[in-house]
């Protein structure tokens, strides 16, 4: 009996252990299951700001009338980012590029400027950035969105882009081996009939041997800069049907893909991403031609703007943005139709490059049409870019955790995209509004109602001396160095 009883007890214990183990297994399985991979389409969660921050009081991204006219915006609005150094100069235009301890930013090309051209800023001391030179080759006087750097070959290049449509097919390239004192390698007019090419934006391939110019929204023109002293036009490609006619673009790590932002205002009428095979140019094949690999168009944005190939946890994505909403500058009309009034960034999964898919929209509350009523009297609604996005850049393209997006009147917004399906905002910075301070090189030098500054540039993440810096430019505040102030969002990211 005893044996029987012991045996039965053991069976019960074994069953209990087995049951508990299976429950644990169930729990374990549940924990290890993939997170929700439904695309994120609403506004991202707000940042948790530090105690000393001068935070937004309205919608996420909005600068309210009270802030604009009551003094808060004039002090600058910030969350987890703080200004540590600035070179205001004569104001900044659309573009910023960088290498080593130097920043390069474009200016407006006003006849009132004392220093026309691209400002070269020495940022070796982040608290005292200062200009060391100005690049004034014709193509550098107003680069629009074409100012790009090759780290590999230490080159900076741009196409002539007055007003976003260069008068001449100008192109210039400088050697920036000594980043503070660039050396002009070439300043040419491309050999095409007048009016064939009007520069707007562009990109340098990572290997630094090819520059891709963008004639918005008409053609892609490819320039061989293997010998930077002797640039050669390889092809001016006008895509059939307008699919691949660029606004701006970026090039893949292996130099064989161009991620074209197809602005929807060209012949195709479609707004979104076009993946182009440009390997013919990279490998210098005879009679090179781009080929469309895939497309992804979306109806909730306009003037598709920026692209950057990035990797998150080893998977390939495109960080993209729209420069305007689906109704372009008519934000009120967008609201009337229940559409997003502004352009915003998004993350696109290109792991399967033939089937790109959007995984998250990096929207703010201002992008939600449901909030239009709260924006009705907002000066941003009256035209132009308002709160729309411009450039977005990742902290590390090969292992991205944070991305920074400039959003005109909404300032610079920083998102945590380490879970690309659940992005969240972690910081923002709106430079102080400088009403009445009409700097000739500023991108808003001719806008009478200065109740805002324009954040428009690419942003550089840089960690040095234990401080994570962010280099930005804005129209009226010029070049600025920010630092992250919330250590929760800083130290644990490396």
């Amino acid at each position, binding site marked *: 009996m005893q044996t029987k009883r012991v045996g039965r007890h053991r069976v019960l214990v074994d069953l209990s252990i087995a049951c508990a183990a299976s429950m644990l297994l169930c729990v374990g399985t549940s924990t290890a299951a993939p997170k929700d991979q439904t695309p994120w389409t609403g506004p991202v969660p707000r940042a948790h700001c530090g105690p000393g921050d001068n935070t937004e*009081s*309205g919608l996420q991204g909005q600068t*309210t*009338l*009270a*802030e*604009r*006219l*009551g*003094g*808060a915006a004039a002090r600058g609005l910030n969350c987890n980012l703080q200004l540590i150094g600035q070179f205001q100069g004569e104001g900044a235009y659309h573009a910023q590029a960088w290498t080593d301890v130097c920043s390069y930013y474009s200016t*407006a090309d*006003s*006849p*009132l400027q004392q220093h026309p051209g691209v400002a070269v800023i020495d940022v070796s001391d982040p608290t005292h950035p200062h200009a060391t030179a100005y690049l004034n080759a014709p193509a550098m006087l107003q680069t629009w969105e074409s100012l790009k750097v090759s780290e590999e070959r230490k080159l900076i290049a741009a196409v002539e882009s*007055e*007003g*976003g*449509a260069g008068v001449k097919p100008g192109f210039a390239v400088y050697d920036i081996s000594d980043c503070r004192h660039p050396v002009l390698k070439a300043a040419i007019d491309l050999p095409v009939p007048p009016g064939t090419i009007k520069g707007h934006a562009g990109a340098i391939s990572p290997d630094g041997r090819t520059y891709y110019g963008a004639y918005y929204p008409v053609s892609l023109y490819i320039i061989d800069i293997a010998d930077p002293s002797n640039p050669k036009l390889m092809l001016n490609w006008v895509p059939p049907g307008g699919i691949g006619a660029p606004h701006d673009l970026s090039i893949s790590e292996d130099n064989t893909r161009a991620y074209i932002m197809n602005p*929807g*205002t*060209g012949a195709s*009428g479609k707004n979104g991403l076009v993946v182009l095979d440009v390997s013919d140019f990279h490998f210098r094949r005879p009679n090179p031609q781009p080929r469309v690999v895939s497309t992804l168009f979306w109806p909730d944005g306009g*003037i598709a703007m920026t692209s950057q190939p990035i990797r998150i946890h080893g998977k390939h994505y495109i960080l993209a943005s729209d*420069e*305007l909403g689906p*109704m*372009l*500058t*008519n934000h*009120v*009309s967008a*609201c*009337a*139709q229940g559409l997003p009034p502004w352009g915003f960034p998004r993350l696109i999964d290109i792991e399967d490059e033939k089937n790109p898919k959007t995984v998250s929209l990096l929207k703010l509350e201002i992008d939600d049409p449901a909030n239009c009523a709260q924006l*009705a*009297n907002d*000066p941003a609604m*009256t*035209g*132009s*870019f308002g709160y729309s996005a411009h450039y977005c850049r990742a902290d590390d393209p090969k292992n991205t955790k944070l991305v920074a997006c400039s959003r005109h009147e909404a300032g610079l917004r920083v998102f945590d995209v380490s879970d690309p399906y659940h992005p969240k905002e972690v910081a923002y910075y709106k430079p102080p509004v400088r*009403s009445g301070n*009409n700097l*000739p090189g500023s991108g*808003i*030098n*001719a*806008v*009478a*109602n*200065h*109740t805002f500054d324009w954040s428009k540039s690419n942003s550089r993440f840089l960690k040095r001396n234990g401080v994570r810096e962010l280099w930005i430019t804005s129209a009226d505040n010029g070049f600025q160095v920010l630092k992250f102030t919330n250590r929760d969002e800083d130290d644990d990211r490396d």
Partner: protein
Amino acid sequence: MLAFPAAAEAHAFVQPYTLPVPFGLYLYGAAATLLVTFFVLAYFARPATAPLAAAAARSPPSGEVPAWLVDALRAFAVGLLLLTLIAGFYGTRNPDANIGMTLFWVIFVLGFTYATALVGDVFAIVNPWRTIAEWLRLSDGTRARVAYPGWLGYWPALVLYVALIWIELFALPRPSTLAIALLVYSGVTFAGVWLFGATAWFRHGEIFSVLLRLVGLLAPLDYRVAAGGIVTVRRRAWFGGVLEGNADRMSLVLFVLFMLSSTTFDGMHETLVWMNVFWKYLVHAFQPLWGTDLIASQRILERWYVAFQRAGLMLSPFLYFAVYMIVIACVKAVTRTAMTLRELALAFAFTVLPIAIVYNMAHYWTLLLLQIPKLPYLVADPFGAGWTLPGLGSPPAEPPPLDMAPIWNTEVMLIVGGHLIGVYLAHRVALRVFDSRRAALASQVPMLVLMMTYTVLGLWVISQPLALER
């Protein structure tokens, strides 16, 4: 106009224009031009030998408009009204792709108004509401169920005009909103015609009849409808209509002034100066009502701001009226005339018309430039259903870039030109109104100050949304 923001608003591809001379010089130059014109007119102008109104009454018609053309135009106008309504209710929600919005706000409210200043008050002949009222036999034209009260004057037209501009500036640009507004307006019009008779209502109550009759006074053509519906046309001097008669009611003076003030308000109400009036001055004046923390109280203050905006529009004609009456009082004082203030105000009111029309043109002409090229696409696809005509293709998604230099120069030319015409007409009216040339010239000094002030204000307001480097 909310539906179609002016492309000049620092659009992506508008290159800022660096003024060749400081902005202040434009203002001084414009004011000086008026001053010189004043002296030139003072030297050359002579009293009219006969009252123009009497001359106009005697002058025979220059021709007759064929009846078939009148009928066709009337049917066409009714068709356009119906198309606007149908597109509003059944077309796309996209105001840019819905023909109703462009037909009404751009082609009719802007383009047709400007055309009226050139070819005369054609609307009086083709008015679709009048045509429908006749078809429905709502009125026999002269006899009314209720006599139109004299005290009502032009107030119905003025109130409806304010409502129209309210919708233009403050309502979301939905084609359906426009269609509903037009339906309600049609109902009001037909009720007015039924009650007061067509003659009285179209003279005093229907916005566009009143507005376009006033604008038509600037044109060198005058249309008359004779017995049997025969339409005759008479040639006259440019702006001759202004000199042929006076405003007959003070409410019509207010209507004329609202033509001017509503455009000014549209230009002003999004400027920093206007916003500061509320947020930097009024808010502090009323601080005891909301506390001390501007940010904490911003929700309630924004509601006040909305009320401030709406009040600005509604009060604008009265503000202009006050300024106008001060000037008229000065005219009376310097001329020591026996005429009453009311008589003087009525006599000079129409001289404001050229200023109102050119200011409106200066404000909106870029919108016409941008929208008219879209018309073929809208005709091909009026409801935004994706239709197209062979060879037409898709409409351009983005307007072509505008060159800021000709935009600014045209606007300066329009505003200065309109004020010069105003100064000229005011001189002519003064020579008609006052017994002596000396009194007539003296009367124009206050009018000149008003014109110079408004020229400077007009140039400043019109410059605000432009990408000008000053």
